[in-house]
């Protein structure tokens, strides 16, 4: 089945959310204004990313991250040009040029930077190819997408889009049942934590906003981030009166016949539809 579209219609936030929740493995290709961006995922985690067909090698990434001097960069480029990133990384660690942790954190920052670029793209054809692995010899990382999504949505300012996503502030929130997800591992701002502390099907989003002195834009943005990260879902508040009147919300058939008659009515419809 295809997983393709345009960022104009299906944002990078929504895509990352999907990849995260479905724990997908594969490569996301987004056609950019100049070069395509390739982002590789393994079981829903960011593994590798590159811009264009030819990636920056490990040495260039380390040099840009100020982990190698200009002289070291030049020497390694000359002598180690034929080595893969994995071989080169091992060589640098063994030669005490750099630690394994420094390599991993530099790569993580580089890959996250590429993904962050995508948040500013409002348009671009994307496709996701399942089970494609990063190029051979490259060092892969394992970065959870929740923080990336939360960071990305912090930049989201389109009021209209937020209104579309959360049409009513009279609905409530509840935590989703996601085994393995731990909200303590997520970097939330103070305001976001305050909102999280009020999440309960009894509290409407509007009440949470009031309690935290947040305006509609601010509460929508926070709730949108939590929704996209897959931590919460929108539910009808416990004990809330439905918007429409009693007369209109319950079919006349339900108010005038008892439970058994209602069931019998439904069974009659079922029989009829089966026979169509």
């Amino acid at each position: 089945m295809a997983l393709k579209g345009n960022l104009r219609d299906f944002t990078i936030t929504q895509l990352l959310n999907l990849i995260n929740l479905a724990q997908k493995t594969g490569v996301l290709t987004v056609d950019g204004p100049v070069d395509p961006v390739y982002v590789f995922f393994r079981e829903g985690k960011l593994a590798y990313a590159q811009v264009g067909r030819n990636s920056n090698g490990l040495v260039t990434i380390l040099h840009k991250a100020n982990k190698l001097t200009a002289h070291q960069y030049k020497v390694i480029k000359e002598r180690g040009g034929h080595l893969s990133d994995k071989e080169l990384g091992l060589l640098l660690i063994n030669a005490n040029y750099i630690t394994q942790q420094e390599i991993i954190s530099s790569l993580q920052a580089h890959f996250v930077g590429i993904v962050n670029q995508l948040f500013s793209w409002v348009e671009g054809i994307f496709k996701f190819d399942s089970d494609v692995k990063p190029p051979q010899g490259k060092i892969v990382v394992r970065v959870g997408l929740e923080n990336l999504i939360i960071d990305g949505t912090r930049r989201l300012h389109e009021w209209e889009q937020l209104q579309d996503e959360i049409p009513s502030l009279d609905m409530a929130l509840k935590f989703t049942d996601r085994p393995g997800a731990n909200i303590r591992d997520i970097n939330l701002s103070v305001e976001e934590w305050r909102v999280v502390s009020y999440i309960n099907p009894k509290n409407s989003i509007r009440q949470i906003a009031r309690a935290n002195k947040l305006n509609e834009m601010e509460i929508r943005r926070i709730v949108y981030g939590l929704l996209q990260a897959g931590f919460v879902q929108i539910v009808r508040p416990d004990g809330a009166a439905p918007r429409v009147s009693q007369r209109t919300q319950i079919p006349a058939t339900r108010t005038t016949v008892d439970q058994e008659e209602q069931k019998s009515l439904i069974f009659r419809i079922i029989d009829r539809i089966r026979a169509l």
Partner: protein
Amino acid sequence: MQTVKMVVTGPFNAGKTEFIRSVSEIDVVSTERKISAETERIKDTTTVAMDFGRITVDNDLVLYLFGTPGQKRFDFMWEILSEGMLGFIVMVDSTRPETFREARSILETFRAYAPTPYVVAANKQDCQDAWAIEDMRIALRLDSHVKLLNCVALEKESVKNVLLELLYSILDEMDGGKS
């Protein structure tokens, strides 16, 4: 004569009219108009008030299927159409991810109108570009207990299956379960 109704809703061009047409015993009373907006010129006409289909259950009972207009500027009709419904079906075009956000918004709006059971029908699943059901569930942010069903609105059996699943959800709710 007792009458009950179900509502078929969803974004523009999701397949609501075809859905009703596939099972209605009368020619669907459709209020279609030529489309004027250039951006919505995916098809020639669209529903502006409602589609109306009928299934006679027996001598005493008739089921009406109402299709809502898909274009947002006619959303003032939705609340009127939702009055007294047994349940509702949200149609989503599986090949057009650009409509998923709107579908979710319509779903939330209808849930606010009335706490009746509902199912979501992933239409056009026979098309090559259709998104997989499990991907759509995440994209539409549907909880695992919400029924998201394969659908091809042009096929009667497929439409029957969606209607039956909605009816089973209604029965579940009567028994105190979740739809």
